[in-house]
Protein backbone atom coordinates (compact mmCIF):
# COMPACT_ATOMS: atom_id res chain seq x y z
CA UNK A 1 0.00 0.00 0.00
CA UNK A 2 2.65 2.61 0.86
CA UNK A 3 4.54 1.62 -2.23
CA UNK A 4 1.59 2.34 -4.46
CA UNK A 5 0.94 5.70 -2.85
CA UNK A 6 4.57 6.72 -2.97
CA UNK A 7 4.95 5.97 -6.67
CA UNK A 8 1.77 7.92 -7.23
CA UNK A 9 3.30 10.78 -5.31
CA UNK A 10 6.42 10.65 -7.39
CA UNK A 11 4.40 10.78 -10.58
CA UNK A 12 2.70 13.86 -9.33
CA UNK A 13 5.83 15.65 -8.27
CA UNK A 14 6.93 15.31 -11.88
CA UNK A 15 4.00 17.52 -12.87
CA UNK A 16 4.58 21.28 -12.74
CA UNK A 17 4.59 22.00 -9.02
CA UNK A 18 6.05 25.18 -7.64
CA UNK A 19 9.61 25.08 -6.38
CA UNK A 20 8.70 26.01 -2.82
CA UNK A 21 6.24 23.13 -2.55
CA UNK A 22 8.80 20.72 -3.91
CA UNK A 23 11.37 22.07 -1.47
CA UNK A 24 8.94 21.62 1.42
CA UNK A 25 8.36 18.04 0.33
CA UNK A 26 12.09 17.43 0.20
CA UNK A 27 12.56 19.10 3.57
CA UNK A 28 9.86 16.94 5.17
CA UNK A 29 11.44 13.79 3.79
CA UNK A 30 14.85 14.86 5.02
CA UNK A 31 13.53 15.66 8.48
CA UNK A 32 11.82 12.27 8.68
CA UNK A 33 15.06 10.54 7.79
CA UNK A 34 16.96 12.64 10.33
CA UNK A 35 14.38 11.70 12.98
CA UNK A 36 14.83 8.04 12.13
CA UNK A 37 18.59 8.31 12.46
CA UNK A 38 18.31 10.15 15.77
CA UNK A 39 16.04 7.42 17.12
CA UNK A 40 18.20 4.58 15.88
CA UNK A 41 21.41 6.18 17.17
CA UNK A 42 20.70 5.56 20.88
CA UNK A 43 19.64 2.01 20.07
CA UNK A 44 22.92 1.35 18.34
CA UNK A 45 24.79 3.15 21.11
CA UNK A 46 23.11 1.17 23.88
CA UNK A 47 23.67 -2.19 22.24
CA UNK A 48 27.15 -1.24 21.11
CA UNK A 49 28.22 -0.25 24.62
CA UNK A 50 26.59 -3.29 26.16
CA UNK A 51 28.55 -5.61 23.94
CA UNK A 52 31.74 -3.53 24.11
CA UNK A 53 31.76 -3.19 27.89
CA UNK A 54 29.99 -6.38 28.80
CA UNK A 55 31.59 -9.08 26.73
CA UNK A 56 35.03 -8.78 28.32
CA UNK A 57 33.57 -9.22 31.79
CA UNK A 58 31.57 -12.33 31.17
CA UNK A 59 33.54 -15.35 32.21
CA UNK A 60 33.00 -18.57 34.08
CA UNK A 61 33.40 -16.88 37.47
CA UNK A 62 30.76 -14.33 36.59
CA UNK A 63 28.30 -17.06 35.76
CA UNK A 64 29.09 -19.39 38.65
CA UNK A 65 30.05 -17.29 41.66
CA UNK A 66 28.34 -15.01 44.12
CA UNK A 67 29.45 -11.38 44.58
CA UNK A 68 32.76 -10.81 46.37
CA UNK A 69 33.04 -8.15 49.08
CA UNK A 70 34.04 -4.65 47.97
CA UNK A 71 37.69 -4.42 47.00
CA UNK A 72 38.16 -8.07 46.19
CA UNK A 73 38.33 -8.70 42.47
CA UNK A 74 36.33 -11.45 40.83
CA UNK A 75 33.02 -12.83 41.94
CA UNK A 76 29.93 -12.97 39.82
CA UNK A 77 26.20 -12.74 39.57
CA UNK A 78 25.28 -16.42 39.55
CA UNK A 79 23.01 -16.01 42.55
CA UNK A 80 21.30 -13.03 40.94
CA UNK A 81 20.66 -14.95 37.72
CA UNK A 82 19.24 -17.83 39.73
CA UNK A 83 17.25 -15.43 41.89
CA UNK A 84 15.74 -13.79 38.82
CA UNK A 85 14.70 -17.22 37.56
CA UNK A 86 13.10 -18.02 40.91
CA UNK A 87 11.20 -14.74 41.07
CA UNK A 88 10.09 -14.99 37.44
CA UNK A 89 8.95 -18.57 38.05
CA UNK A 90 6.85 -17.49 41.02
CA UNK A 91 5.52 -14.54 39.03
CA UNK A 92 4.56 -16.78 36.10
CA UNK A 93 2.92 -19.34 38.38
CA UNK A 94 0.51 -16.69 39.63
CA UNK A 95 0.35 -14.42 36.62
CA UNK A 96 -0.07 -16.84 33.72
CA UNK A 97 -3.10 -18.85 34.94
CA UNK A 98 -4.78 -15.71 36.19
CA UNK A 99 -4.16 -13.80 32.97
CA UNK A 100 -5.17 -16.68 30.69
CA UNK A 101 -8.27 -17.32 32.81
CA UNK A 102 -9.31 -13.69 32.66
CA UNK A 103 -8.69 -13.73 28.90
CA UNK A 104 -10.88 -16.82 28.52
CA UNK A 105 -13.60 -15.16 30.54
CA UNK A 106 -13.48 -12.03 28.35
CA UNK A 107 -13.50 -13.94 25.07
CA UNK A 108 -15.93 -16.74 25.90
CA UNK A 109 -18.31 -15.30 28.48
CA UNK A 110 -17.84 -11.56 28.64
CA UNK A 111 -18.36 -10.54 25.03
CA UNK A 112 -20.39 -7.38 24.62
CA UNK A 113 -21.52 -7.32 28.26
CA UNK A 114 -21.08 -4.39 30.58
CA UNK A 115 -19.18 -6.52 33.08
CA UNK A 116 -16.77 -7.77 30.43
CA UNK A 117 -16.16 -4.20 29.33
CA UNK A 118 -15.42 -3.23 32.92
CA UNK A 119 -12.81 -5.98 33.22
CA UNK A 120 -11.31 -5.07 29.85
CA UNK A 121 -11.08 -1.43 30.87
CA UNK A 122 -9.63 -2.26 34.29
CA UNK A 123 -7.05 -4.48 32.68
CA UNK A 124 -5.93 -1.59 30.47
CA UNK A 125 -5.79 0.64 33.53
CA UNK A 126 -3.66 -1.94 35.34
CA UNK A 127 -1.32 -2.01 32.35
CA UNK A 128 -0.63 1.70 32.84
CA UNK A 129 0.08 1.55 36.57
CA UNK A 130 3.72 2.53 37.19
CA UNK A 131 5.79 -0.45 38.27
CA UNK A 132 7.00 1.26 41.43
CA UNK A 133 3.37 1.49 42.61
CA UNK A 134 3.00 -2.25 42.10
CA UNK A 135 6.07 -2.60 44.31
CA UNK A 136 4.42 -0.60 47.11
CA UNK A 137 1.32 -2.78 46.91
CA UNK A 138 3.28 -6.05 46.94
CA UNK A 139 5.19 -4.69 49.92
CA UNK A 140 1.96 -4.04 51.76
CA UNK A 141 0.39 -7.35 50.78
CA UNK A 142 3.29 -9.73 51.32
CA UNK A 143 6.31 -8.13 52.99
CA UNK A 144 4.35 -6.49 55.80
CA UNK A 145 2.33 -9.67 56.43
CA UNK A 146 5.42 -11.89 56.44
CA UNK A 147 7.56 -9.42 58.28
CA UNK A 148 10.51 -9.67 55.88
CA UNK A 149 11.47 -9.23 52.23
CA UNK A 150 11.09 -12.34 50.08
CA UNK A 151 11.20 -13.86 46.63
CA UNK A 152 7.48 -14.48 47.02
CA UNK A 153 6.80 -10.74 47.35
CA UNK A 154 8.87 -10.07 44.23
CA UNK A 155 6.99 -12.79 42.38
CA UNK A 156 3.62 -11.34 43.39
CA UNK A 157 4.69 -7.91 42.14
CA UNK A 158 5.78 -9.33 38.77
CA UNK A 159 2.61 -11.43 38.53
CA UNK A 160 0.46 -8.31 38.93
CA UNK A 161 2.41 -6.73 36.08
CA UNK A 162 2.05 -9.77 33.83
CA UNK A 163 -1.72 -10.19 34.18
CA UNK A 164 -3.02 -7.35 31.96
CA UNK A 165 -0.72 -8.17 29.02
CA UNK A 166 -1.60 -11.85 29.12
CA UNK A 167 -5.31 -11.18 29.58
CA UNK A 168 -5.64 -9.00 26.53
CA UNK A 169 -3.41 -11.21 24.38
CA UNK A 170 -5.39 -14.33 25.32
CA UNK A 171 -8.67 -12.59 24.63
CA UNK A 172 -7.51 -11.38 21.22
CA UNK A 173 -6.20 -14.80 20.23
CA UNK A 174 -9.36 -16.62 21.35
CA UNK A 175 -11.50 -14.18 19.40
CA UNK A 176 -9.57 -15.14 16.26
CA UNK A 177 -10.84 -18.71 16.58
CA UNK A 178 -13.96 -18.88 14.38
CA UNK A 179 -17.31 -19.50 16.07
CA UNK A 180 -17.82 -22.42 13.66
CA UNK A 181 -14.98 -24.32 15.33
CA UNK A 182 -16.75 -24.05 18.66
CA UNK A 183 -20.06 -24.97 17.07
CA UNK A 184 -18.53 -28.06 15.53
CA UNK A 185 -17.43 -29.20 18.97
CA UNK A 186 -20.83 -28.47 20.50
CA UNK A 187 -22.39 -30.39 17.62
CA UNK A 188 -20.39 -33.44 18.60
CA UNK A 189 -21.79 -33.20 22.08
CA UNK A 190 -18.70 -31.77 23.71
CA UNK A 191 -19.53 -29.71 26.75
CA UNK A 192 -18.73 -26.04 26.83
CA UNK A 193 -15.82 -26.08 29.27
CA UNK A 194 -14.23 -28.95 27.40
CA UNK A 195 -14.66 -27.10 24.11
CA UNK A 196 -13.05 -23.99 25.53
CA UNK A 197 -10.04 -25.84 26.91
CA UNK A 198 -9.48 -28.57 24.33
CA UNK A 199 -10.68 -26.88 21.17
CA UNK A 200 -10.67 -23.10 21.40
CA UNK A 201 -7.70 -22.56 23.71
CA UNK A 202 -5.81 -25.33 22.01
CA UNK A 203 -6.30 -23.76 18.59
CA UNK A 204 -5.05 -20.46 19.95
CA UNK A 205 -2.25 -21.95 22.06
CA UNK A 206 0.65 -20.52 20.11
CA UNK A 207 -0.87 -17.04 20.08
CA UNK A 208 -1.43 -17.21 23.81
CA UNK A 209 2.17 -18.31 24.29
CA UNK A 210 3.28 -15.23 22.33
CA UNK A 211 1.36 -13.04 24.75
CA UNK A 212 2.84 -14.85 27.74
CA UNK A 213 6.37 -14.49 26.35
CA UNK A 214 5.89 -10.77 25.74
CA UNK A 215 4.64 -10.31 29.29
CA UNK A 216 7.56 -12.38 30.53
CA UNK A 217 10.09 -10.32 28.59
CA UNK A 218 8.52 -7.15 29.91
CA UNK A 219 8.81 -8.10 33.58
CA UNK A 220 12.17 -9.89 33.25
CA UNK A 221 13.98 -6.56 33.27
CA UNK A 222 11.79 -4.89 35.89
CA UNK A 223 13.73 -3.45 38.78
CA UNK A 224 11.47 -0.95 40.52
CA UNK A 225 8.90 -3.45 41.84
CA UNK A 226 11.67 -5.64 43.26
CA UNK A 227 13.45 -2.92 45.23
CA UNK A 228 11.40 -3.41 48.36
CA UNK A 229 9.94 -6.85 47.71
CA UNK A 230 12.72 -9.24 46.68
CA UNK A 231 15.21 -6.69 48.04
CA UNK A 232 18.39 -8.43 46.87
CA UNK A 233 20.84 -10.77 48.54
CA UNK A 234 24.59 -11.27 48.31
CA UNK A 235 24.33 -15.03 48.76
CA UNK A 236 22.59 -17.99 47.21
CA UNK A 237 18.98 -18.36 48.10
CA UNK A 238 16.43 -20.91 46.96
CA UNK A 239 13.79 -20.29 49.61
CA UNK A 240 10.78 -18.31 48.55
CA UNK A 241 10.56 -16.77 52.00
CA UNK A 242 13.99 -15.17 52.00
CA UNK A 243 15.28 -11.96 50.42
CA UNK A 244 16.52 -12.89 46.96
CA UNK A 245 18.97 -11.36 44.53
CA UNK A 246 17.73 -10.49 41.06
CA UNK A 247 19.74 -9.61 37.97
CA UNK A 248 18.17 -6.17 37.38
CA UNK A 249 18.53 -5.28 41.07
CA UNK A 250 22.17 -6.30 41.05
CA UNK A 251 22.81 -4.22 37.93
CA UNK A 252 21.21 -1.23 39.63
CA UNK A 253 23.22 -1.63 42.85
CA UNK A 254 26.47 -2.04 40.96
CA UNK A 255 25.80 0.77 38.50
CA UNK A 256 25.30 3.40 41.20
CA UNK A 257 28.25 2.13 43.28
CA UNK A 258 31.58 3.95 43.12
CA UNK A 259 33.69 0.87 42.29
CA UNK A 260 35.13 0.16 38.86
CA UNK A 261 35.04 -3.57 39.37
CA UNK A 262 31.31 -3.40 40.11
CA UNK A 263 30.69 -1.15 37.11
CA UNK A 264 32.35 -3.76 34.94
CA UNK A 265 30.09 -6.45 36.37
CA UNK A 266 27.03 -4.24 35.94
CA UNK A 267 27.75 -4.09 32.20
CA UNK A 268 28.22 -7.83 32.05
CA UNK A 269 24.96 -8.43 33.91
CA UNK A 270 23.17 -5.99 31.63
CA UNK A 271 24.48 -7.78 28.56
CA UNK A 272 23.22 -11.11 29.84
CA UNK A 273 19.84 -9.63 30.72
CA UNK A 274 19.39 -7.96 27.34
CA UNK A 275 20.45 -11.07 25.46
CA UNK A 276 17.86 -13.13 27.32
CA UNK A 277 15.15 -10.57 26.60
CA UNK A 278 16.05 -10.00 22.96
CA UNK A 279 16.22 -13.72 22.29
CA UNK A 280 12.75 -14.27 23.68
CA UNK A 281 11.24 -11.27 21.90
CA UNK A 282 12.91 -12.07 18.57
CA UNK A 283 11.97 -15.73 18.74
CA UNK A 284 8.35 -14.74 19.29
CA UNK A 285 8.52 -12.22 16.44
CA UNK A 286 10.00 -14.64 13.94
CA UNK A 287 7.58 -17.36 14.90
CA UNK A 288 4.66 -14.94 14.63
CA UNK A 289 5.73 -13.60 11.23
CA UNK A 290 6.12 -17.10 9.84
CA UNK A 291 2.57 -17.83 10.84
CA UNK A 292 3.61 -20.58 13.21
CA UNK A 293 1.83 -18.87 16.01
CA UNK A 294 -1.30 -17.90 14.13
CA UNK A 295 -4.30 -19.19 16.00
CA UNK A 296 -7.00 -20.62 13.79
CA UNK A 297 -6.21 -21.76 10.30
Amino acid at each position, binding site marked *: MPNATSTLAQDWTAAPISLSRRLKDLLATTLAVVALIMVLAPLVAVFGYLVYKGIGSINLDFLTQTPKPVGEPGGGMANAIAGSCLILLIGSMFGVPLGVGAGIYLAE*YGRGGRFGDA*IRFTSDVLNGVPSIIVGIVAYG*LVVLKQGHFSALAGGVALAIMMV*PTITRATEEMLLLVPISVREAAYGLGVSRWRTT*LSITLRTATSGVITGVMLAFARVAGETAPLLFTAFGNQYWNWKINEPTAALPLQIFTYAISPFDEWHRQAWAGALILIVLIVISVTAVRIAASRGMLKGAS
Partner: protein
Amino acid sequence: MKEQESLAGTFHPIADHLFHGLMLLCGVSVLAIVALIIFELITKSTLSWHAFGWSFFARSEWDPVNDQYGAMPFIYGTIVSSLLALLLAVPLAIGVAVFITEMCPEWLRVPLAFTTELLAAIPSVIYGLWAIFVLVPLLRTEVEPILGRLFGWTGLFEGTPYGIGMLAAGIILAIMIVPIISSITREVMTAVPRQQREAVLALGATRWEMIRVGVLRNARAGIMGGIILGLGRALGETMAVTMVIGNRPEIARSLFAPGYTMASVIANEFSEATGDLYLSSLVEVGLALFLVTIIVNIIAQFLVWTVTRGTPARSNA
Protein backbone atom coordinates in the same frame (compact mmCIF):
# COMPACT_ATOMS: atom_id res chain seq x y z
CA MET B 1 -24.41 -17.46 22.06
CA LYS B 2 -27.70 -18.24 23.80
CA GLU B 3 -28.15 -21.40 21.74
CA GLN B 4 -24.64 -22.58 22.48
CA GLU B 5 -25.16 -22.13 26.16
CA SER B 6 -28.29 -24.21 26.25
CA LEU B 7 -26.79 -26.90 24.00
CA ALA B 8 -23.61 -27.20 25.96
CA GLY B 9 -25.38 -26.89 29.25
CA THR B 10 -27.44 -30.00 28.72
CA PHE B 11 -24.40 -32.26 28.92
CA HIS B 12 -22.29 -31.31 31.92
CA PRO B 13 -24.12 -28.59 33.73
CA ILE B 14 -22.05 -28.84 36.92
CA ALA B 15 -18.65 -28.92 35.24
CA ASP B 16 -19.73 -26.11 32.98
CA HIS B 17 -20.88 -23.94 35.82
CA LEU B 18 -17.73 -24.71 37.72
CA PHE B 19 -15.56 -23.72 34.77
CA HIS B 20 -17.59 -20.59 34.15
CA GLY B 21 -17.21 -19.67 37.81
CA LEU B 22 -13.47 -20.28 37.76
CA MET B 23 -12.95 -18.11 34.71
CA LEU B 24 -15.21 -15.46 36.20
CA LEU B 25 -13.00 -15.56 39.28
CA CYS B 26 -9.93 -14.88 37.15
CA GLY B 27 -11.74 -12.00 35.45
CA VAL B 28 -12.89 -10.58 38.76
CA SER B 29 -9.35 -10.85 40.13
CA VAL B 30 -8.28 -8.21 37.60
CA LEU B 31 -10.84 -5.88 39.16
CA ALA B 32 -9.74 -7.03 42.60
CA ILE B 33 -6.07 -6.25 41.91
CA VAL B 34 -6.85 -2.68 40.93
CA ALA B 35 -9.21 -2.30 43.89
CA LEU B 36 -6.48 -3.68 46.14
CA ILE B 37 -3.93 -1.22 44.76
CA ILE B 38 -6.27 1.68 45.47
CA PHE B 39 -7.14 0.31 48.92
CA GLU B 40 -3.50 -0.23 49.88
CA LEU B 41 -2.44 3.21 48.71
CA ILE B 42 -5.29 4.97 50.49
CA THR B 43 -5.09 3.13 53.82
CA LYS B 44 -1.31 3.37 54.02
CA SER B 45 -1.27 7.09 53.32
CA THR B 46 -3.98 8.23 55.76
CA LEU B 47 -1.40 9.15 58.40
CA SER B 48 0.30 11.62 56.12
CA TRP B 49 -3.04 12.86 54.82
CA HIS B 50 -4.20 13.65 58.36
CA ALA B 51 -0.93 15.34 59.19
CA PHE B 52 -0.63 17.61 56.16
CA GLY B 53 -3.91 17.56 54.20
CA TRP B 54 -3.82 19.26 50.83
CA SER B 55 -0.79 21.28 51.82
CA PHE B 56 1.25 18.09 51.36
CA PHE B 57 1.26 18.80 47.65
CA ALA B 58 2.24 22.45 48.03
CA ARG B 59 4.97 22.16 50.65
CA SER B 60 8.52 21.91 49.45
CA GLU B 61 10.34 20.68 52.53
CA TRP B 62 11.27 17.02 52.63
CA ASP B 63 12.91 16.54 55.98
CA PRO B 64 12.82 13.03 57.46
CA VAL B 65 14.84 14.16 60.48
CA ASN B 66 12.15 16.58 61.65
CA ASP B 67 9.29 14.55 60.16
CA GLN B 68 8.24 17.30 57.78
CA TYR B 69 7.10 16.18 54.35
CA GLY B 70 5.95 18.00 51.25
CA ALA B 71 5.69 16.61 47.73
CA MET B 72 6.19 19.78 45.71
CA PRO B 73 9.82 19.17 44.59
CA PHE B 74 8.91 15.68 43.39
CA ILE B 75 5.81 16.83 41.56
CA TYR B 76 7.87 19.58 39.94
CA GLY B 77 10.65 17.16 38.97
CA THR B 78 8.21 14.62 37.55
CA ILE B 79 6.37 17.21 35.48
CA VAL B 80 9.47 18.99 34.19
CA SER B 81 11.36 15.80 33.27
CA SER B 82 8.28 14.34 31.55
CA LEU B 83 7.49 17.49 29.60
CA LEU B 84 11.12 17.80 28.56
CA ALA B 85 10.97 14.18 27.39
CA LEU B 86 7.81 14.87 25.38
CA LEU B 87 9.36 17.96 23.82
CA LEU B 88 12.28 15.90 22.56
CA ALA B 89 10.43 12.67 21.77
CA VAL B 90 7.29 13.84 19.98
CA PRO B 91 8.87 15.31 16.82
CA LEU B 92 11.24 12.35 16.54
CA ALA B 93 8.50 9.78 17.10
CA ILE B 94 6.16 11.35 14.58
CA GLY B 95 9.00 11.71 12.08
CA VAL B 96 9.86 8.04 12.43
CA ALA B 97 6.21 7.00 12.12
CA VAL B 98 5.75 9.14 9.01
CA PHE B 99 8.88 7.71 7.47
CA ILE B 100 7.94 4.11 8.19
CA THR B 101 4.30 4.28 7.11
CA GLU B 102 4.46 6.72 4.19
CA MET B 103 7.96 7.13 2.85
CA CYS B 104 10.14 4.09 3.19
CA PRO B 105 10.30 1.26 0.66
CA GLU B 106 8.08 -1.65 1.61
CA TRP B 107 10.86 -4.14 2.28
CA LEU B 108 12.31 -1.82 4.90
CA ARG B 109 9.04 -1.28 6.74
CA VAL B 110 8.89 -4.35 8.97
CA PRO B 111 12.59 -4.36 9.93
CA LEU B 112 12.47 -0.65 10.81
CA ALA B 113 9.28 -1.00 12.81
CA PHE B 114 10.77 -3.95 14.65
CA THR B 115 14.01 -2.13 15.34
CA THR B 116 12.33 0.94 16.79
CA GLU B 117 10.17 -1.30 18.94
CA LEU B 118 13.28 -3.02 20.20
CA LEU B 119 13.96 0.24 22.05
CA ALA B 120 10.88 -0.53 24.13
CA ALA B 121 12.20 -3.96 25.06
CA ILE B 122 15.34 -2.60 26.73
CA PRO B 123 14.80 -2.59 30.50
CA SER B 124 14.79 0.70 32.32
CA VAL B 125 17.77 -0.25 34.46
CA ILE B 126 19.90 -0.81 31.35
CA TYR B 127 18.97 2.63 30.03
CA GLY B 128 20.03 3.95 33.41
CA LEU B 129 23.34 2.13 33.28
CA TRP B 130 24.02 3.42 29.80
CA ALA B 131 23.01 6.94 30.78
CA ILE B 132 25.34 6.97 33.81
CA PHE B 133 28.40 5.88 31.86
CA VAL B 134 27.79 7.23 28.37
CA LEU B 135 25.13 9.93 28.25
CA VAL B 136 26.05 11.80 31.44
CA PRO B 137 29.79 12.17 30.66
CA LEU B 138 28.84 13.28 27.14
CA LEU B 139 26.49 15.90 28.53
CA ARG B 140 29.02 17.06 31.10
CA THR B 141 31.96 17.52 28.77
CA GLU B 142 30.38 18.31 25.41
CA VAL B 143 26.73 19.25 25.33
CA GLU B 144 26.10 21.22 28.50
CA PRO B 145 29.04 23.66 28.17
CA ILE B 146 27.88 24.51 24.66
CA LEU B 147 24.25 24.90 25.73
CA GLY B 148 25.37 27.04 28.64
CA ARG B 149 27.38 29.34 26.39
CA LEU B 150 24.65 29.71 23.78
CA PHE B 151 21.48 29.72 25.87
CA GLY B 152 22.73 30.48 29.36
CA TRP B 153 20.88 33.81 29.26
CA THR B 154 17.50 32.02 29.35
CA GLY B 155 18.28 30.74 32.82
CA LEU B 156 17.37 27.23 31.72
CA PHE B 157 20.94 26.25 31.00
CA GLU B 158 23.05 27.85 33.67
CA GLY B 159 25.17 26.67 36.54
CA THR B 160 27.78 23.97 36.76
CA PRO B 161 27.36 21.29 34.11
CA TYR B 162 27.34 18.16 36.29
CA GLY B 163 25.95 15.99 33.55
CA ILE B 164 23.63 14.44 36.09
CA GLY B 165 20.41 16.39 36.44
CA MET B 166 17.06 17.23 34.93
CA LEU B 167 18.38 17.43 31.36
CA ALA B 168 19.89 13.94 31.49
CA ALA B 169 16.63 12.59 32.93
CA GLY B 170 14.60 14.27 30.20
CA ILE B 171 16.82 12.89 27.43
CA ILE B 172 16.83 9.33 28.71
CA LEU B 173 13.05 9.47 29.20
CA ALA B 174 12.67 10.76 25.65
CA ILE B 175 14.61 7.80 24.28
CA MET B 176 12.40 5.48 26.31
CA ILE B 177 9.04 6.88 25.20
CA VAL B 178 9.79 7.32 21.49
CA PRO B 179 8.82 3.69 20.66
CA ILE B 180 5.39 3.98 22.31
CA ILE B 181 4.49 7.25 20.67
CA SER B 182 5.76 6.17 17.28
CA SER B 183 4.10 2.74 17.34
CA ILE B 184 0.73 4.28 18.21
CA THR B 185 1.21 7.00 15.61
CA ARG B 186 1.95 4.30 13.05
CA GLU B 187 -1.13 2.39 14.11
CA VAL B 188 -3.48 5.35 13.72
CA MET B 189 -1.84 6.48 10.48
CA THR B 190 -2.40 3.02 9.02
CA ALA B 191 -6.03 3.25 10.12
CA VAL B 192 -6.56 6.31 7.92
CA PRO B 193 -8.36 5.04 4.82
CA ARG B 194 -6.35 4.83 1.62
CA GLN B 195 -8.95 6.90 -0.21
CA GLN B 196 -8.01 9.90 1.89
CA ARG B 197 -4.47 9.72 0.55
CA GLU B 198 -5.58 9.16 -3.01
CA ALA B 199 -8.08 12.01 -2.89
CA VAL B 200 -5.43 14.48 -1.74
CA LEU B 201 -2.90 13.21 -4.30
CA ALA B 202 -5.52 13.51 -7.01
CA LEU B 203 -5.79 17.19 -6.18
CA GLY B 204 -2.15 17.56 -7.15
CA ALA B 205 -0.57 17.49 -3.72
CA THR B 206 3.06 16.60 -3.14
CA ARG B 207 3.80 13.64 -0.92
CA TRP B 208 4.34 15.82 2.12
CA GLU B 209 1.12 17.72 1.49
CA MET B 210 -0.66 14.40 1.17
CA ILE B 211 0.79 13.25 4.52
CA ARG B 212 -0.03 16.50 6.24
CA VAL B 213 -3.54 17.03 4.91
CA GLY B 214 -4.63 13.51 4.16
CA VAL B 215 -3.04 11.50 6.94
CA LEU B 216 -1.77 13.49 9.90
CA ARG B 217 -4.84 15.69 10.09
CA ASN B 218 -7.13 12.69 10.13
CA ALA B 219 -5.04 10.81 12.64
CA ARG B 220 -4.62 13.79 14.92
CA ALA B 221 -6.72 12.56 17.83
CA GLY B 222 -4.98 9.21 17.80
CA ILE B 223 -1.52 10.74 17.64
CA MET B 224 -2.49 12.93 20.58
CA GLY B 225 -3.52 9.72 22.34
CA GLY B 226 -0.11 8.22 21.63
CA ILE B 227 1.62 11.31 22.96
CA ILE B 228 -0.43 11.23 26.15
CA LEU B 229 0.26 7.52 26.55
CA GLY B 230 3.96 8.37 26.26
CA LEU B 231 3.45 11.03 28.91
CA GLY B 232 1.87 8.43 31.19
CA ARG B 233 4.87 6.17 30.73
CA ALA B 234 7.30 9.03 31.39
CA LEU B 235 5.51 10.08 34.58
CA GLY B 236 5.78 6.62 36.11
CA GLU B 237 9.22 5.71 34.83
CA THR B 238 11.48 4.96 37.76
CA MET B 239 14.88 3.34 37.41
CA ALA B 240 16.58 5.19 34.58
CA VAL B 241 15.46 8.53 35.96
CA THR B 242 16.53 7.66 39.49
CA MET B 243 19.98 6.83 38.21
CA VAL B 244 20.63 10.14 36.45
CA ILE B 245 18.43 12.88 37.88
CA GLY B 246 20.63 13.55 40.91
CA ASN B 247 17.99 12.83 43.56
CA ARG B 248 17.92 16.14 45.33
CA PRO B 249 14.53 17.53 46.42
CA GLU B 250 15.08 21.02 45.09
CA ILE B 251 13.25 23.20 42.67
CA ALA B 252 15.71 24.88 40.33
CA ARG B 253 15.08 26.77 37.14
CA SER B 254 18.16 25.44 35.39
CA LEU B 255 17.86 22.11 33.64
CA PHE B 256 21.48 21.40 34.61
CA ALA B 257 20.51 21.27 38.28
CA PRO B 258 19.74 17.96 39.97
CA GLY B 259 16.12 17.20 40.78
CA TYR B 260 13.96 14.40 42.09
CA THR B 261 10.81 12.71 40.83
CA MET B 262 7.85 11.10 42.58
CA ALA B 263 8.78 7.65 41.37
CA SER B 264 12.44 7.98 42.26
CA VAL B 265 11.87 9.22 45.80
CA ILE B 266 9.80 6.10 46.43
CA ALA B 267 12.45 3.91 44.84
CA ASN B 268 15.26 5.43 46.90
CA GLU B 269 13.69 5.93 50.28
CA PHE B 270 10.87 3.40 50.69
CA SER B 271 12.90 0.49 51.99
CA GLU B 272 14.89 2.74 54.31
CA ALA B 273 11.99 4.78 55.61
CA THR B 274 11.88 4.62 59.35
CA GLY B 275 8.94 6.14 61.10
CA ASP B 276 5.30 5.74 60.19
CA LEU B 277 4.79 9.27 58.94
CA TYR B 278 7.80 8.99 56.62
CA LEU B 279 6.48 5.77 55.08
CA SER B 280 2.98 7.13 54.90
CA SER B 281 4.19 10.26 53.10
CA LEU B 282 6.01 8.14 50.54
CA VAL B 283 2.84 6.12 49.94
CA GLU B 284 0.91 9.35 49.50
CA VAL B 285 3.39 10.42 46.85
CA GLY B 286 2.68 7.02 45.27
CA LEU B 287 -1.07 7.56 45.47
CA ALA B 288 -0.76 10.91 43.73
CA LEU B 289 1.43 9.37 41.04
CA PHE B 290 -1.03 6.51 40.60
CA LEU B 291 -4.02 8.81 40.18
CA VAL B 292 -2.24 11.08 37.71
CA THR B 293 -0.96 8.23 35.52
CA ILE B 294 -4.37 6.53 35.56
CA ILE B 295 -6.15 9.70 34.43
CA VAL B 296 -3.53 10.36 31.77
CA ASN B 297 -3.80 6.78 30.50
CA ILE B 298 -7.58 6.80 30.36
CA ILE B 299 -7.56 10.00 28.30
CA ALA B 300 -4.97 8.45 25.97
CA GLN B 301 -6.89 5.18 25.55
CA PHE B 302 -10.00 7.14 24.72
CA LEU B 303 -8.25 9.26 22.08
CA VAL B 304 -6.61 6.26 20.40
CA TRP B 305 -9.91 4.44 20.49
CA THR B 306 -11.76 7.24 18.67
CA VAL B 307 -9.39 6.88 15.72
CA THR B 308 -8.78 3.15 15.47
CA ARG B 309 -12.28 1.91 16.30
CA GLY B 310 -14.54 4.55 14.88
CA THR B 311 -14.51 6.63 11.76
CA PRO B 312 -11.51 8.92 11.28
CA ALA B 313 -11.70 12.17 13.16
CA ARG B 314 -13.41 14.99 11.32
CA SER B 315 -10.91 16.90 9.28
CA ASN B 316 -12.61 20.25 9.62
CA ALA B 317 -12.96 20.29 13.38
